[in-house]
């Protein structure tokens, strides 16, 4: 965005915010934009690099996502569930994407899709909760109270809007010791009936002589309104000139108002409007495919494929969008052998995706053996902290070890840095 466009946009967003939002007080998008784009890199219009973290809840079946189609062990371990080699979308002579992932395949062909193979951690835990905690806190050995993005918020003394979740509840990922990311509901400010933004703003007023703790409590209400307003303004703002006239929110979103596509649409608006958020957290659930896996899993992968490939194509159209990198992970993969219900049970390692205009496409790491198993499960070949560490270093431009509890990540050349 050049200076003139930005000014026009600021005016438009002030108008779109409306009287109620202005009455709520606090800093609005306009003020934040004016400060956030002050000295950040050579072109203030595009802002700093941003990360979009996509969490797949339930444990995605990695072997039917990135399919080892040429391995006889794959076909014999899950005869009813395995894909025919000619149906999968070949990445090389041994691996291919699930047949429904045509959008991912296009990203692969344009070298914007990185596939990290066999990602996991030592002593895998098969509980959804515990394993998800491990991924989000990046601490496999001991439970810790902070997520890795939360620790980055702490370390950079970031304000809450630096990390925003569009999920229904704030994930542990965004919880720091002293800072916590924000949680913004899709589809508008969610307040109890009869309670409006003005009333919340009233609770957010500070009183002379009240304790510091009460002031903090009041401030949290103001923060909540301010960040929500920021996102709503982005949602309703005029599109920046370089975005063209694409109408994004009318995309063929499947799964309703909270679908991954809807979450990503809001991310797009925020990125393009220059909201100073560095990390977005979005999610898709339902991957716990214990029975009759084929149909359900394909439908989920299709949602993932359509939402993410549209998102990445869209990112490429704007300068701000070209600074975005996406990572997709799940708490574990599934067992190599299918169970008796044509499904798969909780497993261990799985593939992880990194994508976006700055991604260096290709395969990373090593596909785990299907015959050298750990009690029926894949042996991880890459520690997930190597991928997250890479993203901390390249996207957030921070020291990986500082936010991975001292873990020395082996960095992967997944993301182009610099311009």
């Amino acid at each position: 965005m050049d200076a003139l466009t930005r000014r026009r946009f600021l005016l438009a967003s002030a108008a779109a915010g409306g009287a109620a939002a202005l009455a709520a007080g606090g800093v609005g998008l306009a003020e934040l934009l004016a400060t956030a784009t002050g000295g950040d890199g050579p072109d203030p219009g595009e802002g700093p690099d941003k990360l979009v973290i996509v969490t797949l809840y339930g444990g995605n079946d990695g072997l039917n996502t990135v399919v080892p189609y040429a391995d006889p062990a794959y076909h014999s371990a899950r005869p009813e569930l395995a894909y025919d080699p000619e149906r999968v979308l070949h990445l090389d002579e041994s691996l291919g994407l699930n047949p429904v992932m045509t959008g991912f395949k296009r990203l692969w062909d344009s070298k914007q899709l990185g596939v990290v193979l066999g990602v996991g951690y030592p002593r895998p835990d098969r509980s959804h909760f515990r394993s998800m905690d491990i991924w989000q806190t990046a601490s496999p050995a001991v439970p810790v109270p902070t997520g890795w993005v939360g620790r980055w918020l702490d370390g950079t003394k970031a304000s809450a809007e630096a990390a925003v979740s569009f999920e229904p509840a704030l994930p542990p990922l965004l919880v720091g010791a002293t800072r916590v990311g924000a949680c913004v509901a899709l589809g508008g400010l969610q307040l109890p009936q009869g309670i409006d933004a003005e009333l919340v703003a009233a609770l957010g007023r500070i009183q002379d002589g009240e304790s510091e703790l009460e002031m903090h409590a009041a401030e949290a209400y103001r923060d909540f309104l301010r960040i929500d307003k920021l996102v709503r303004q982005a949602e309703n703002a005029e599109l920046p000139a370089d975005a063209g006239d694409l109408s994004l929110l009318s995309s063929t979103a499947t799964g309703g108002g909270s679908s991954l596509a809807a979450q990503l649409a809001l991310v797009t608006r925020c990125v393009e409007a220059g909201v100073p958020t560095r990390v977005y957290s979005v999610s898709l659930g339902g991957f716990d495919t214990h029975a009759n896996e084929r149909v359900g899993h394909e439908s989920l992968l299709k949602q993932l494929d359509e939402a993410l490939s549209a998102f990445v194509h869209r990112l490429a159209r704007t300068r701000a969008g070209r600074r975005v990198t996406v990572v997709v992970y799940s708490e574990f993969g599934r067992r190599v052998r299918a169970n008796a219900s044509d499904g798969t049970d909780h497993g261990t390692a799985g593939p992880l995706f990194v994508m976006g205009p700055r991604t260096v496409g290709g395969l990373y790491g090593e596909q785990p053996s299907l015959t050298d198993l750990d009690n029926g499960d894949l042996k991880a070949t890459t520690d997930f902290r190597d991928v997250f560490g890479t993203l901390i270093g390249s996207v957030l431009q921070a020291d990986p070890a500082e936010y991975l509890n001292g873990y020395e990540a082996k960095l992967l050349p997944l993301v182009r840095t610099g311009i």
Partner: protein
Amino acid sequence: MSDNVAMLLRRAGFGPTASELAAAKKAGYAATVARLTAPSGPDRGAAAAPMPDLGRDPFDNLPNPTTEQRAAAESTRKAHTDAIIRWWLDRLTVADHQATEKLMFFWHGHWATSIRKVGSPQFMLAQHQKIRESPNFKVMARRLVSDPALVYWLDGQLNTKDAPNENLARELMELFMLGIGHYSERDVKEAGRALTGWRTDLGVPSTAIYFPADHDAAPKTILGRTANFDAYTLVDFLAKQPACARFIASRLWFRYGSSHEPIIDATQKRIAAAFPVGMQMLRALFEDEEFRSGRHRLVKQPVEWLVGAMRQLNIRPAHFSQKTLSQVVSGLNGLGQVPFAPQSVGGWPSGTAWLNSAAAQVRLGLADLLAGFAEVDGMNAEELANVLAIETWTNRTYLALKQAKEPRKLLIIGLASPEYLVS
């Protein structure tokens, strides 16, 4: 001094009702401390909330479950987990001996064991019972060092003579008994050897099982003393260290006094002198001048806030539908404090960590849910202050309350007000 009686009740329990506060003000500070810390007779309120009998863990004797068996067992565990959370919230709400219940909640945060890793609700409930029934800290430490939930939580079942795992040993010293700076890395390693040989069995929630063959019976040198330490002699020895009494005193101060102002020397000595009986230590804390001064404020923990509101508005979790319970538990999760599920062995967060923008939204939703259950007719701001044991509203909140026409809206504002979030 009447203000301090209100503070005393807020800190010692989960939010006093109007009648409790009136009675305490009449009795005075000293008599209230005595009544709180040495309640007479059985707790008649708590008797209305008997501990659930869960029966066996569904995964017990199910070494290789089929998919269907696993799904059924997981759903039973989920129901059991809901049951123990509901029960505990209900008990906290109806119990008359509030200081006893609050101290129990403190110990849960102290030994900070989470069902998210332990998995078995039976294990969690057995640990709860052990803490509840321990007459003092020394006995509690002895019971917990072989408690299956704690052992499993801290990988004690992996700790053998041939492959030592020092996780439990480290936390015993750092977080449970001595505090950082009162032991060396060598002490941790040696203590880890003393703790070898315990494994857990889902069929036996009452205790971990000792396997002599996995125990390292050779002498260990811990804090300068060489002996054939085992799990029990180790915790007995640690509990005798002067650092232990002082450490527990500082932890009590952290949750009851201030979580950001460190304990002062005189207060620490006074509380430590009452070691090892938790309630006696608490009494010493309540009688301490620094505490009574009212200089220190605390952010209410989410469970304190919720239970306090339910006590004051006469709402019982026992009567919640399954859906309401789920909403409440998910609200507590959003606020960062689900009973039986501390985020880490370090215990619950504290202070301003509870006051973030995401929690602000969740709190408004929970306040709305509670307000929907409260049976209140026309009520004004003054009457609401009385119900919620708030001395006076700030102008800010008073003005907001004045605008509220419906009782439900009035309640939401009161419960969400900054002054109601601190104690």
